[in-house]
Structures are given as structure tokens and as C-alpha cells.
């Protein structure tokens, strides 16, 4: 069996893709060259054959486990049962990366299947910090927290999102999963400078980068960007990615594509394009260092 495991001490050298069920059989059979595979934790919490397939694939690829349901931003206690299921999965798969979101998903016994926005306040910072502490203790490892795409902001927010993340990192020792598409979508929808946002993030905390597609939609007469992971990465997001790499250096990068899923080669081409941008940025950084 060909081994493509490309994990290095500095992280996952080549770009990865989100593993979606429609592609599993083809990946199992052809074992294409991919830097790593990322799965949504919640799709692997039963005894389904998908878990066995992942256990097989983890021998050939570094795995990233990306949670969408822990609801770190919910007031009150974390769902311990869900955290336990996540721990069982992490123990079983031994992933290279584990990540979750700066968001909340419902109330006790109501799961809205969405990443809902938080007011960025001292109270929220305390809640999220406590929950990140608890999750990291339960999992016995550092987790990465992703900046979400948001479609509403609260009047009583007092902290900028980037500052909120910086403080969360300082308090909990967590890392940041910097989603460039989410950042681009938010910056466009709310009219702020994504470069300044990137400049505020601590380089050493960045553990992963996400790239995805978005589309423009008309919502009650206003045109906004919706982060739907349903198309190729757009030109301005690639540009912002290149700028992020210039600032952060090489980071494990993932192509997310969840709806209107393309054929596997299309997804692989996106990942290889990310690798090319990474190589170009690395060369530029070397040139600058010499000069």
C-alpha cells in the first residue's frame, strides 16, 4: 500500500480536504496524494461503517477532527455526554488536529444544527474560556478554535472578534483555526478590514487554515455573502490566503466543500492550488530573508 503520510514536526505539510461520504470509496481505492483528511466529529459518533473506514484511512493520512456540535459558547454547562463521545473518537483515531468553533448551537436538549454568533463580551469570554479549558482537559490536548462566519452582530458586544480570540488563546492555551473564507465573508458583509484582523492574531497560535467557497445572495433586497462551502475558493479568498501565509508562514490548510459536492479530482486540484500558493509564499519569504 502506498504511504502518503506527510505529517511533519512543523505540521501537515500539504493541503488537506474535508472527507465527505460520497468520496470515501474512491479515496479508499485510489489513495490519492493529500496532505490530510478532515472529518466532522459528529458524523463518526456511532458504530457505522464510516468509523471503520476512517480507522483504515488514518494509517495512510494524518487526520483532523473538526467538531461542529460541542457548543463551546453556550451559557451553562457543556454537554458532558457529547464531550465524552468526542473523547472516545479522539482516543480511537488519534488525530493530528482537533478543532471546534467560537459559537454556540442551542440550549440543553435543543440542537439547532448551526454555528450561532456570540456577543463578544466579558461574560462570553469567561464562558468560552471555561468550556475550552474543560474540553482540553477532557481530551488531554490543545484544541483549535475557529472564527465563524456571522450574519448578525450584537449591540452590546464590547470586544473585537480578533481580540476575543487573542484573549481566549492567552487564557486557555488553545490554538486558532483561521478560516479565511469566514473572515472574507464577514469583512465584506460588515465592512471591516480583514488584513487588520489577520494582523491582530498571534502567529504562534495559528494551528490550521480553512478555505472554502461562498456565494452572493439577495436577502430582503440587500446583497450579502453566504458562506455555504458549495463552490470553488474565490479569487479574493485566495488573495487573502496568500497574505495570511505571508504573515503566518506555512500552516496546515484545508479545502472545505460540503454542499454541491464536486468530483474528487476537483477537490484535489483545489488542495494542490493551495500548495502552489504556499510554495510561492515560502519562496518569497526566503528571498526577503536573504535580501
Amino acid at each position, binding site marked *: 500500500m502506498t504511504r502518503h503520510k506527510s505529517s511533519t514536526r512543523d505540521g501537515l505539510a500539504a493541503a488537506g480536504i474535508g472527507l465527505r461520504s460520497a468520496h470515501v470509496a474512491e479515496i479508499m481505492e485510489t489513495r490519492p496524494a493529500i496532505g490530510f483528511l478532515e472529518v466532522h466529529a*459528529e*458524523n463518526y*459518533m*456511532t*458504530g*457505522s*461503517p464510516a468509523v*471503520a473506514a476512517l480507522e483504515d484511512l488514518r494509517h495512510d493520512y494524518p487526520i483532523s477532527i473538526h467538531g*461542529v*456540535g*460541542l*457548543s463551546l459558547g*453556550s*451559557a*451553562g454547562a457543556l*454537554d458532558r*455526554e*457529547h464531550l465524552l*463521545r468526542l473523547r472516545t473518537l479522539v482516543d480511537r483515531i488519534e488525530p493530528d488536529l482537533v478543532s471546534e468553533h467560537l459559537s*454556540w*448551537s*442551542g*440550549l440543553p*436538549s*435543543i*440542537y*439547532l*444544527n*448551526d454555528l*450561532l454568533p*456570540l*456577543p463578544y*463580551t466579558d*461574560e*462570553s469570554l469567561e*464562558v468560552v474560556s471555561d468550556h475550552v479549558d474543560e474540553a482540553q482537559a477532557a481530551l488531554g490536548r490543545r484544541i483549535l478554535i475557529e472564527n465563524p462566519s456571522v*450574519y*448578525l*452582530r*450584537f*449591540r*452590546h458586544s464590547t470586544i473585537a472578534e480578533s481580540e476575543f480570540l487573542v484573549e481566549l488563546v492567552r487564557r486557555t492555551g488553545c490554538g486558532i483555526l483561521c478560516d479565511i473564507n469566514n473572515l472574507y465573508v464577514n469583512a465584506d*458583509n*460588515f465592512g471591516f478590514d480583514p488584513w487588520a484582523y489577520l494582523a491582530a492574531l498571534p502567529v504562534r497560535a495559528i494551528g490550521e487554515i480553512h478555505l472554502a467557497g461562498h456565494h452572493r445572495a439577495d*436577502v*430582503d433586497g*440587500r446583497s*450579502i455573502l*453566504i458562506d455555504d462551502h458549495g463552490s470553488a475558493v474565490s479569487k479574493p479568498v485566495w488573495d487573502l490566503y496568500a497574505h495570511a501565509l505571508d504573515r503566518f508562514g506555512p500552516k496546515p490548510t484545508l479545502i472545505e466543500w460540503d454542499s454541491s459536492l464536486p468530483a474528487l479530482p476537483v477537490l484535489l486540484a483545489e488542495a494542490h492550488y493551495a500548495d502552489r500558493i504556499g510554495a510561492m509564499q515560502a519562496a518569497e519569504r526566503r528571498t526577503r530573508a536573504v535580501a
Partner: protein
Amino acid sequence: MPSLEELQKDICDAICVGDDTRVSELIAGDGMDPASRLRIYRNHAVITLTDALKATYPVVCRLVSDRFFAYAAHEFIREHLPEQPNLAEYGAEFPGFLAQFPPCHDLGYIADIARLEWAINQALHADNVAAIARGDLSGISSADAPRLVLTMHPGLRLVESRWPVERIWRANQADGDPDLSIDLDSGGVRLQVHRRGDRVMLKSLSPCEFAFLQALARGDSLADAADIALRLDLLFDLAAALGTILEDGIVTGFRLQPPSED
């Protein structure tokens, strides 16, 4: 300023039941009506939960059309939100909902197709416990055999319908014949749904085989289960039935019931 807990309750109300009276004034306008912003989240929840239901109930969706399915799912989601993030466990109440859903009144078989698809979903996601083989029972003497209580595979489901749901289900698979016409009055079916490796198998059973398995699944001894089967069919062959379920890989353990005192 509300506490985070109050705010989250209010947002849930806004998303679940469309009541945004308390929360709108907390949302920055940013050039758009707060209600429109909340609607983005509401739509997202409905669309993704409809997709989750569609993934579990693909044949129901195919039979009623995408549009009708989306309508039924929307009505269902209003009453039944997921309680936790593992969406493979979401939608258990959908068959019962369809059975009571007035627009489905003339499609009596739809709820039973949904019951079958829920059983398939449960079989697929059950823990894959190793089955025992015939040889594992070789130490049991024929005198003790009637007291055997078998542990059935956690993915085993038994589905009974007065409609030909198995034929309807098969005709609506990717390799099924779309032009096949099925007489809805051609009789009911009793099905054993079980997981074998990566695949879920459907197997049609006779009334006595079905009753035998139902008895075993609820923990009856071999003797009691055989009694029930024999009452339905005097020619029920216990040894053959036992051999079949062992071969199907749906027995995962056994114990002996203590001898009765009388």
C-alpha cells in the same frame, strides 16, 4: 443588557418559533432589518435539518417528491428539533409524524416506508458487535438447550407492515426498476433488518419466523420462543430456525436461564 443565557433563550425563540420581539433590539442593524438577519439562521436550520431527514429517509423523499418532503420536514422540524448534535439519531418520530400528517392521509404506506428506513438507519449505526458461530453453542447439552437465552445484535430490527414495503423500497434503490408497478394490495410483509459488515440486509420472514425472532429479541428462552412459533405453524422447525439466525450473524451472545422451580 441580557445575560448570555437569556440572550440564547431569546435567540432560540426567534429561530424556532419566529418570536423576535425581545431579541431584535439587541441586534445591530448594519444596514439590514434584524428580522432578516435572524431569518438567515432560521432558514439555515430548516434547510440543514431537512437534508439530515432526507439522508435518513431517501425513499420517502423519492416517493413524495422533493417539494412535498421539504414541506413535511418543515412541519416536522417545528415540532421536533434535535436534542443533541449526532444527527444520525435525529428523526425517530418522523414515521409517527407522517402517519398522523393529514396530507399523507391517502398514502397509508408512506409511514411504513419511513419505519423501514428508520430501522435501516438504526441497523447501520448500531455498534458492530461480533456474532457468535454455531460452534460456540456446542457445549450446550440438548437437555439445557430449551433454557438458552440469546443476545441479539444491537442492530437487529423487526419491521411488520400490511403494505408490500420491501418491494417498494427495493424498486426505489439506485439499481431498482423505476417502471415496476407494485400492487399496493398485494399483501403485507414481515422483515428482519440487520447489519452484515458494511451493509444492511432486508430479509422477508414467515409469520412464525417473525414471532420467533420477536420473542428472542425481547429475551424469551429458546423453548418459550419456539412455543410461540409453533402456535402459528405446527411445522415450525426450531433447529433450522436457530441455524438460520446463527448464519445471519444476528446472535452475539447467550446465557442459560436458571432451571424453573416447578
